[in-house]
């Protein structure tokens, strides 16, 4: 399916975009929102259910205290008001992956509302801060997962039947909704991406979610409309669902701007509909038309009593909030002496916390950054793990750097120490000892190895004697090879030059 698109520049000349972002966050609670079922990702199908989350007749929900606490903390971190009294509500609609055919959610009484967060975007004129207003954050529950079987494409269309797994049903979700973001103009797609990235950092800082977009624990819908440039009105919007990476948030917004601009420019009108983002092809396609007749028949959930967070509780949670990510980054950048680029790379790699802990364990800042962003990032990439999931701790990294600084290992040996630690062979010191990786700088052992190398390479030795000291590299290589890399290269060179002087 190909649509007419207008170039982004032309679209921006003619139209103003208005954008709303809805983000669903899966909390990382131990148990579900309304029952004690575990929430582990990737369990065997239908092994994490009970009468409550399976919606069996007669079962009743009970609210998870930590989920409420997380919702409040998220609200506070986004500068929201916290409701003094609010209720859960039933959102009634039929869908096979929703066991009760209503979602227990919140309607006109969200637990958090009226907040904001400042995001930074890069512009040709330097960094620019944009305030994004938050309309609300409310508590709800996730649905099950459907697999669509049969049919040519494997997609929902043309499938013969579907297979439903309810392990995910009932996992706590917080839905965070922005107010319309107006006036961002050509920066709108960038703002969208920066907002979601910032939200991810805030949530990670709070420790309330795994925030892994690829696993669906952070999901973004992009609502977008265009109005004639300068008109100050709101156009008909589309709702692009399941935008599952930061890059896609920006791309989906760009795409919808170009698509809608082409339609409006051609005299057409925008259909109010949901659209689906295709990560692979980078386009959105039409979904369901959102008719005004859609009627969720919300009403207060009678099986749950109202939530009325005591003010002392809210204030305690407020006082325990971590430093906001932007403040923290600015502070750390200054403490560490990182350039803007260093800092951006560190944050972008999701390594800020790891680098911070490594430095706290005694490692020089640049060395900490280097290990995590090069050596360890490469290994994480190879194994498909997140940096945080590598079986190496910041303390290990700091210790390996210390061994280097003490001259007990060299760079090459350090990589072998990482091999050992990552393979589960123990601490850096244990790996050094077990693998015998310490650098040899003892003259006795080195001298013998150098003599052997000179004897084995008389031509090279002759060149050095003739003053071509650059040839010493070949002898050093031979010594290193003989000593399996564990020789102190500097001392070897000195010995060679002494012996062949």
């Amino acid at each position, binding site marked *: 399916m190909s649509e007419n698109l207008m170039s982004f520049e032309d679209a921006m000349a003619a139209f103003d975009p208005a954008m709303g972002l809805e983000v669903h966050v899966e909390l990382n609670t131990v148990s579900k929102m309304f029952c004690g079922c575990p929430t582990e990702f990737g369990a065997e199908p239908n092994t994490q259910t*009970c*009468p409550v989350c*399976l*919606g*069996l*007749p*007669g*079962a*009743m*929900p*009970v*609210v998870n205290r930590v989920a409420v606490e997380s919702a409040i903390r998220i609200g506070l971190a986004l500068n929201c008001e916290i409701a003094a009294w609010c209720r859960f509500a*039933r959102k*009634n609609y*039929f869908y*096979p992956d929703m*066991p*009760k*055919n*209503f979602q227990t959610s919140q309607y006109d009484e969200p637990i958090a509302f009226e907040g904001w967060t400042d995001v930074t975007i890069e512009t040709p004129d330097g960094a620019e801060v944009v305030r994004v207003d938050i309309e609300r954050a409310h508590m709800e529950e996730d649905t099950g997962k459907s697999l669509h079987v049969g049919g040519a494409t494997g997609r929902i269309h043309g499938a*013969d039947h*579907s297979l*439903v797994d309810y392990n995910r049903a009932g996992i706590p979700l917080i839905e965070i909704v922005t107010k319309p973001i107006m006036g961002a103009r050509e920066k709108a797609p960038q703002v969208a991406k920066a907002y979601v990235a910032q939200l991810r950092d805030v949530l990670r800082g709070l420790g309330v979610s795994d925030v892994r977009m690829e696993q669906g624990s952070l999901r973004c819908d992009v609502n977008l409309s265009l109005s004639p440039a300068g008109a100050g009105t709101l156009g008909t919007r589309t709702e692009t669902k399941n935008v599952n990476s930061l890059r896609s948030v920006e791309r989906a917004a760009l795409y919808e701007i170009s698509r809608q601009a082409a339609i409006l420019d051609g005299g057409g009108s925008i259909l109010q509909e949901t659209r689906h983002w295709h990560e692979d092809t980078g386009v959105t396609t039409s979904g369901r038309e959102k008719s005004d007749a859609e*009627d969720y*028949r*919300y*009403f207060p959930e*009678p*099986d*749950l*009593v109202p939530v009325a967070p005591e003010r002392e509780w809210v204030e305690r949670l407020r006082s325990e909030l971590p430093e906001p990510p932007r403040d923290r980054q600015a502070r750390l950048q200054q403490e560490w002496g990182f350039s803007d680029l260093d800092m951006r790379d560190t944050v972008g790699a999701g390594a800020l916390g790891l680098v911070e802990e490594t430095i706290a364990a005694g490692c020089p800042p640049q060395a900490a950054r280097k290990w995590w962003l090069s050596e360890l990032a490469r290994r994480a990439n190879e194994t498909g793990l997140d940096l945080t999931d590598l079986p190496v701790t910041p303390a290990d990294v700091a210790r390996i750097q210390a061994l280097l600084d003490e001259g007990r290992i060299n760079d090459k040996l350090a990589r072998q120490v990482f091999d050992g630690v990552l393979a589960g062979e123990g601490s850096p010191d244990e790996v050094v000892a077990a693998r015998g990786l310490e650098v040899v700088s003892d003259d006795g052992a080195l001298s013998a190895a150098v003599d052997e190398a000179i004897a084995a390479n008389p031509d090279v030795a002759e060149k050095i004697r003739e003053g071509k000291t650059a040839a010493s590299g070949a002898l050093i290589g031979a010594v290193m090879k003989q000593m399996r890399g564990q020789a102190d290269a500097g001392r070897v060179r000195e010995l060679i030059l002494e012996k062949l002087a």
Partner: protein
Amino acid sequence: MSERDERGATERDGLTRRTAAQLADALASGETTSVALTQAYLERIAAVDGPVHAFLHVDAEGALAQAAASDRRRAADGPASALDGVPIAVKDVLATRGLPTTCGSRILEGWVPPYDATVVDRLRAGGLPILGKTNMDEFAMGSSTEHSAYGPTHNPWDLDRIPGGSGGGSAAAVAAFEAPLALGTDTGGSIRQPGAMTGTVGVKPTYGGVSRYGLVALANSLDQVGPVTRTVLDAALLHELVGGHDPRDSTSIDQPMPDVVAAARQGATGDLRGVRVGVISELTGEGYQSGVQSRFDEGVKLLVDAGAEVVEVSCPSFVHALAAYYLILPAEASSNLAKFDAMRYGLRVVPDVAEGAAPPSAEDVMRATRDKGFGDEVKRRIILGTYALSSGYYDAYYGQAQKVRTLISRDFEVAFEHADVLVSPTAPTTAFALGEKLDDPVAMYLNDLATIPANLAGIPGISVPSGLAEEDGLPCGFQVLAPAAADDRVYRVGAALERLLIRQWGGALLDRVPSLDGAHA
């Protein structure tokens, strides 16, 4: 049948006519065993349930196994509860692990829950053998038990009449001596109104007093589980066993229960001096059958004789109670019943499609299943509830109904400033004929006029048999209401009235229920 067997059968018959408290004593003294008792009830069920049809499912094997376990426990460690070994029947709206639970609906035919309702858990822990599951209006929607998908229950007093509803099965089982005790549920009178129509005792506890976990919800903000028995003391014993806080029900009251058993025993002394009784003027007089009204008036007089002070109270907002109820209930029910969609359990109806057409979608199957699986009354109420919650009508209907709830609670608050308990007839009429009101929903709904306000306000109520109406010889009920969490008061006043009436009658009312032996459907 040999002479010896016949004598054995007669003895067992004698057992079935005793109250649960008497049976508990007989078990404690070693006069009988739980197995003998359970066997006697199973035989009674086999003999009379054909024409009565109180049960949808009888679990003879399970009940006898539980009875045997009870006897062993009693011998080894002593009884697990005051009612250990006394069998019970359970309304089919309560989830029972391993036992079919249909809610009287085709859509749940054959469903066997993988879990127990909390009250069922407590019955099992207390050692009460579960005889089976009792008939009810489909999803408890009805006042006659005629809306059961599995056929109506017949009133043991007159098999051509309804036993009340929705819990007609539990009430009829107790009235016909098929069970000494039963559990019912009361959303707008489904325990109390059948109690009135069958001459049994029924209690709707304070909302939150008994766990609803495992009760297949009709209207969550109105439903309560409660006892259906032959005496007030039996009701108190059962209430005490199943009641109390349950962490699995968020609306469960986390406070100690009032001592209902002590209150029932206190009431049985027949002394009500110092008790202020309020007669609700809106729930008497016009619209009440003359015999029902006469029995009620006599009951009030007996309370006065027992020393109670009687005052008249007015609850003007009750005029809107029925309307509020018939909006709140369908609204909540329409949402509750959405889960019956043929995907995870229960009936699945796959509609026919033309040859070569695409197979039916999940939507098609849902629609066809819900059309075939739900009866007329359920469909009426689902549509009514869907309407009441629709965005255009919410404020005019559901929103207003919730405000009326507030007004009704305020009426009660004011009334309870003047009286410790409030009284009224339980139902405006005696049992009507099967089929009489089946096609007139509004007339059917009017039957719940006197019982509904207690559900809207969440307060406790009891129905005690008040005698037979002279015009038709059928039982009438006397309702006692008390403030929330003061369930003990309804037991005290109910037990006093029961005692005074039995003295007047010279025996229990149920002694006069026709023998069903040899009756045929």
